[in-house]
């Protein structure tokens, strides 16, 4: 379902080209739970951005469900993000002046879903995260764990195929961090492909398939195929 072939991504830093990703080949099947680990600066966030179609590789092809998304124009790439991918960020990225409901509603508004349907789907998504009672609170009135749950509700309300989580517990205390992980694993159990980027070995090791990146190359791909 996710197929990366020869993906390269370089950044110019000063007058030097720095290879953030070098010739990455990666295949992730539908319904897998994968963790991507590596030290900071290893390129794991760049890889995540490419997987999320937020960034374009300089070379190589990226196929989702057999469709080459690197060749798509802006509008079509936005559509891929809207319909097939959900993002969970380390810093939640909730819109501060919107309530939990409005934050979760945002991707549905962008997708042009009618208000009545939006209301039902948002309520269901918040209920699934166990925060229905916080629906009308703004992010600043929520704890870190609650915020991340709102963010997960927002990522899943569009019913994506893939959930990309970038250090989802990086900004949480241990307790709420493990709650968030359990929620993500629950979503994976219900059929979602889950890709978690982390430098926390304890979280990374919970995934059946663990990929390790150092200096822009995959140096280890363990437990694959079994999932």
């Amino acid at each position, binding site marked *: 379902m996710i197929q990366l072939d020869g993906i390269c991504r370089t950044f110019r830093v000063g007058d030097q080209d720095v290879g953030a990703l070098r010739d990455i080949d990666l295949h992730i099947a539908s319904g897998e739970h994968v963790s991507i680990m590596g030290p900071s600066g290893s390129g794991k966030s760049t890889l995540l951005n490419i997987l999320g179609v*937020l960034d374009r590789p300089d070379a190589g092809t990226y196929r989702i469900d057999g469709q080459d998304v690197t060749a798509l124009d802006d509008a079509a790439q*936005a559509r891929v993000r809207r319909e097939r991918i959900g993002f969970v960020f380390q*810093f939640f990225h909730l*819109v501060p002046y919107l309530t939990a409901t409005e934050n979760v509603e945002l991707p549905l508004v962008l997708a042009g879903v009618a208000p009545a349907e939006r209301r039902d789907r948002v309520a269901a998504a918040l209920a699934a995260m166990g925060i229905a009672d916080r629906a009308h609170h703004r992010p600043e009135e929520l704890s870190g764990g609650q915020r991340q749950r709102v963010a997960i509700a*927002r990522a899943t309300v569009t019913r994506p195929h893939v959930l990309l989580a970038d250090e989802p517990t990086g900004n949480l205390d241990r307790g709420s961090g493990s709650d968030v992980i359990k929620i993500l694993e629950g979503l994976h159990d219900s059929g979602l492909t889950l890709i978690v980027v982390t430098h926390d070995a304890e979280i990374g090791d919970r995934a059946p398939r663990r990929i390790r990146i150092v200096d822009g190359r995959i140096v280890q791909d363990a437990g694959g195929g079994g999932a």
Partner: protein
Amino acid sequence: MRPPDLLQTALRALLRHRSRSAMMLLAMAIGVAAVVTLTSLSEAARRYVTSEFASLGTQLLIVSPGKAATRGTGMFIHETARDLTLADALALLRSPQIARIAPLVLGQTVVSSGSRQREVPVLGTTSEFLDLRRWTLAQGQFLPPGDPERPESVCVIGEKIREELFGPRPVLGEWLRAGDRRCRVTGILATQGRSIGLDADEVLVLPVATAQDLLDERSLSRILVEARSRDALPGAQQEIVDIVRGRHQGEEDVTVVSQAAVLETFDRILRSLTYTLAGIAAVSLAVAGILIMNVMLVSVAQRTPEIGLLKALGAPRRQILSSFLVEAALLSSAGGVLGLLAGWSGSALVGRLYPNLPVGAPAWAVIAAFATAIGTGILFGALPARRAARLDPVQALSRR
């Protein structure tokens, strides 16, 4: 994104930065109000002046001595012109195209009654003048009809002269002294609402022959001629020239100007004044546009993470672009409406203060001001909107 959602999102963004939005609104409103007020005032001036002239009658021709050079040096009159005499004026009545005439002699004299005296402008003319010039009387009779060549000792005075010479006393039939002769007052001119040129309030009107004797002046200053109809104007104009040439040994030494031509010239001049003012006012609209651009650029910078998020959630560039443009359009149209209201109430106020002035912004200026407001809003909003749309989502999200 559905249009109502687009609108609501834009409204929410604007309401979140009230003072910033209010400032842009104000700038836009001032620009539009300036266009509306200035054009409505200069339009009022134009309508006022043209209606003044139109009230003199569009069938009117004005004959003056001397041949005006219409080319090169402008309206200079030859000093060597032959006099335009009363006999010339009366000869004009031979033309079938001409309905009425009124010869005019202008000068200054001192009038007195008892111990009061003052210097006043003198107008020597005939009984037809009142009607030709559309003046009216407050009391009594105007000059008597009859042989214009016979001097008679009667006069008609303006309201202000009556006031100063006679005060509250009844005036009709009283005698006053004008220069070295005495004449009986037969009528008082009404204060004329419209008065371009001669002020009816302070003029002394005498029969033309009397005025010529008093001023010792054989030549006429002007002849007012009324053509039979508007269509007869060109023919009448030609005949005047022909008749006078016949009497002046073949020399063409008078100038005939039609009231309609003067009216047209004024209309043209004042119309271009209106356009100029509208243009100047439009500059303030452009300034408002630049302000909107700057404030929106700041807004884009502040909302960078939010824009990045919207992109990650699947908003294409076009959508980001249109949501910023909708914001700009909302702001500028709201500013436009405010400005229209302010402009209208401003010109209504002027209309109250000067009831004679027919104020009212012309429709083209209202439409143009409003369209320019929205146009500049969108035009100057386009650059910030494009900048927002082109933000790299990865970088936008990493800034926090």
